[in-house]
């Protein structure tokens, strides 16, 4: 029963997020809005974290599985990409590295600035 209860709460926030997404013209997907709404509800103590922990852990720890079926679309799309597949692949891979380096160094840079200004910049692990 606890699992169903937890799943129901998560689905309720998903539905709420979806409704909000429709209202703002799909600018942000419902799942992302649902995540923000759930976070807000947890902070406001409207939802107890323990009521959804079991289901949330099950979902997030198996996230990779959930992406697998969508990936098979590559078989159908291959014809379109194959004309310049090498260039396409190079762009995807190298720009991913670029974004990763840019964001990673941005955080390190802001942290460094903060430490130089003398404030404690450590994190809770």
């Amino acid at each position, binding site marked *: 029963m606890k699992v169903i209860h937890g799943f129901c709460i998560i689905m309720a926030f998903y539905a709420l997020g979806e409704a909000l997404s429709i209202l703002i013209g799909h600018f942000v997907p419902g799942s992302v809005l649902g*995540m923000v709404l759930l976070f807000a509800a947890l902070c406001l103590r409207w939802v107890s974290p323990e009521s959804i922990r079991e289901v949330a852990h099950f979902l997030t720890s198996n996230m*990779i599985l959930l*992406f697998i079926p969508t990936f098979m679309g*590559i078989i159908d799309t291959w014809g379109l990409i194959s004309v*310049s597949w090498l260039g396409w692949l190079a762009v*995807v891979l190298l720009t*991913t590295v670029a974004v990763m380096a840019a964001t990673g160094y941005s955080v*390190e840079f*802001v942290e460094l600035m903060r430490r130089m200004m003398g404030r404690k910049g450590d*994190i809770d692990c």
Partner: protein
Amino acid sequence: MFSEIINSVPFLLLLTLGAYIFGVWVRTRSHIAMLNPMLIAIPIIIAVLLVFDIEPSHYIESNRLITFMLGPCVVALGLTLYDHRVMIVRNLAAIATAVVVGSVVGVVSVVLMCRWLNLDALFEVSMAAKSVTLPIALDISQPLGGNAAITAVSVAVCGLFGGIVGPSLLRLLGIRNPVAVGAAMGSASHGIGTARAIEEGAVQGAVSGLCMGLMGVATAVVAPLLMQWLAR
């Protein structure tokens, strides 16, 4: 009759689950963290689909139960955010900076590299939002005149690549701060990067999930403006 069995929903669901479990098993046995279960599961499924002549679109349709769970899974990341709220608030400036920089670098790097390699302009607009979670990426590329299929595959390959090499690459670049690692994984490789970041640690996972969402919003704002500015 045989083809009816092999094309049935339970069989195709079992194929996905079985290939994933096998992928996880191989990774645990081999002790190679880089060996993403997806990397093992995908070739197995492609081989089965080709050998038994199963339509990819039929396979995807039959596995909607699994794909649908992505929605609740992203919502569930709200709990991960809550668990690390103190750390997130303390690092909000760094996270916000990273997301703004990441969204601009993401779009500009794709456009410049496509032009440098003389790729068709269709690739340019279809891939501009490739670092963003799929539903947002599609909503960004469609109005710009992108091709949905190219967008989807680029987003998937970008995620898979980041999920596989991300942690090692970041270590190589000297980026070790857990917040920085999480921000980089989520910003560059959306959900698949986040799935991998969760394995690296709870802080990395929480920051990654947050950055995945923020990056989607930032790119949605930045991409149309930059594309207009970069128009030839």
